[in-house]
């Protein structure tokens, strides 16, 4: 416990004056009082002189502790005897009364001095305790802070780890699903029975579709790695969205074969200030998403409008729609809808790309479906892009 001893030393040095200083002050006060009272000593009573001389003892005790109190009390007793008890200016006592008075004075001065000094020590000790408690409290607060920070950090790394394993799971699932089809078909075309041309073409189309799905997935993964590396910066140019949208719909004709697609872009639509390839990826993901959630024969509507200096693009399907509670979360990575076979990175990538352009993306209730499939309110994904100013 070297700490508490150190604190006590600190306590001593924290007295208003040191022992020596307090004793000197006490002696100086005694000298002062004596100098004031000596001219009147014949007219003042011994009790008055004695009371006056107790004051320096109290001061020294308060300022310097017990030792200073004792030294000052001794000085005061000598002063009283020499200067205020007759015969004056000698160390002799004539009367027994005076001897008793000196004895009583010394005892009282010592008692008062000691009491004051003790009180001072107690006060100092209490202050020390308070300081110690304060310090302990401070340390505990630091510990708690550190603990909270650690918990926060570990939760962060946990989340990071969870995200990583979620990514690995969904990526390996997504890569594998097309590969399963490709292997199943190619193994059968090589070693299986002879297929007639129509079925063979159909099987080859399956392989082609799955290869394209893999290609789209790889494009998404590349974007994801660019987003993670913080290097997703759009190379802006003037993009004619009507061309981009119709071209993408045409290229995805096989993905979209179970739905009807309507593209509605006014010819007055201004050019967008955007990265063609990245916006194309957003549109691809949204169309693929719409086709995945649409009922067979449903309609997917693609619209673009100028609105408040921004271009607003809507991709609306007639699928089950997105629960209002989930409308923010579906843009988080690895959120897949219930039973969905998608990787759950597509929409997160859409958001990152749109936001990199300064725009925003959201999902709302869609156009709704024909009465035949009641309960399908549909989903409408809306994203905005800046208008190109030449």
């Amino acid at each position, binding site marked *: 416990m070297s700490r508490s001893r150190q604190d006590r030393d600190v306590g001593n040095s924290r007295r208003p004056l040191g022992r020596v200083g307090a004793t000197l002050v006490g002696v100086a006060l005694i000298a002062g009082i004596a100098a004031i009272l000596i001219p009147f000593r014949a007219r003042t009573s011994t009790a008055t002189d004695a009371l006056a001389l107790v004051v320096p003892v109290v001061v020294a005790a308060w300022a310097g502790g017990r030792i200073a109190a004792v030294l000052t009390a001794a000085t005061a007793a000598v002063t009283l005897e020499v200067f205020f008890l007759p015969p004056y200016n000698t160390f002799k006592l004539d009367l027994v009364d005076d001897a008793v008075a000196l004895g009583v004075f010394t005892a009282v001065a010592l008692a008062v001095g000691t009491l004051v000094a003790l009180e001072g020590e107690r006060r100092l000790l209490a202050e020390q305790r308070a300081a110690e408690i304060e310090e302990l409290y401070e340390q505990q607060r630091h510990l708690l802070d550190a603990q909270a920070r650690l918990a926060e950090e570990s939760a962060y790394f946990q989340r990071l780890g969870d995200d990583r394993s979620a990514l690995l799971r969904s990526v390996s*699932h997504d890569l*594998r*699903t*097309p*590969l*399963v*089809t*490709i*292997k*199943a*078909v190619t*193994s*059968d075309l090589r*070693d*299986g*029975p*002879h*297929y007639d041309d129509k*079925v063979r073409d*159909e*099987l080859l189309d*399956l392989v082609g*579709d*799955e290869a394209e799905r893999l290609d789209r997935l790889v494009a998404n993964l590349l974007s994801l790695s660019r987003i993670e590396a913080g290097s997703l910066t759009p190379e802006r140019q003037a993009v004619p969205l009507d061309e981009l949208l119709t071209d993408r719909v045409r290229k995805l004709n096989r993905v979209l074969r179970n739905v009807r697609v309507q593209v509605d872009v006014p010819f007055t639509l201004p050019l967008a200030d955007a990265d063609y390839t990245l916006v194309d990826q957003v549109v691809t993901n949204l169309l693929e998403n719409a086709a995945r959630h649409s009922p067979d024969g449903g309609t997917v509507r693609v619209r673009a409008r100028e609105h408040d200096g921004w271009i607003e693009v809507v991709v609306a399907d007639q699928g089950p729609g997105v629960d209002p509670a989930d409308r923010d979360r579906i843009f988080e990575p690895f959120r897949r809808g*219930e*039973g*969905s*076979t998608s990787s759950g990175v597509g929409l997160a990538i859409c958001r990152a790309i749109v936001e990199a352009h300064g725009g925003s993306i959201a999902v709302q209730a869609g156009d709704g479906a024909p009465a035949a499939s009641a309960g399908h309110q549909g989903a409408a994904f809306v994203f905005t892009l800046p208008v190109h100013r030449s």
Partner: protein
Amino acid sequence: MTGETVLVIEDTPAIGRALRAALEARGYHAVLAMTGKDGIDAAAVSDPGAIILDLGLPDMDGRDVCRRIRTWSDVPIIVLTVDDSEQRKVETLDIGADDYVTKPFSTPELLARVRVALRRGRAVDGEPPDPILTVGDVVVDVPHHRVQVAGEDVELTPKEFAFLALLARYPGRVLTHRAILQEVWGPEYGSETQYLRVYASQLRKKLGEDPSAPRLVTEPGVGYRLVDRAAIPEP
């Protein structure tokens, strides 16, 4: 063999279409179900000769589909799974699947398993089992405790014989370690897989096995199957 119905329960449309084409090209009638619930219904309605069941279905666990179908039907079920852990395979067989194939699979190999399953299904239907079991060139004469391989008599100990006869009764099908131990050694056995390794290696010697084309196939961590070498193409 033509006209037999094979039910495919698989949620990935592309895989379902590929399997349908492959089954129809071989003369089977293919029924496709994309959810577990539809699959269970189809299993009841279409009276399939065999079922190909994907374990990863959107609406329910494929193993529950298997259990549900097993409550009323002994139809052979071949499970498709991406999880190739041994524990998962054993679990799958324990809940009543006949066989499993891991994805990605070769379609000809999967359909060879389907053929085996259909044959087994017919054997179960035709009441008294043939006392003489034939798997490729292995003939097991159960009543007379005799085994012939490629026309040659082979001497087996009683345990070796019981092991081989058990596998021959379910040609092409994986039997788990536990199932073999309990059947051949008795119900109190189950974890003594080292016995099986010893007997399998003795049997292989006596059968004159070619390690590159074995009749007695080890499924590591899972069990054993006896195959007709001519019928199963290499994956």
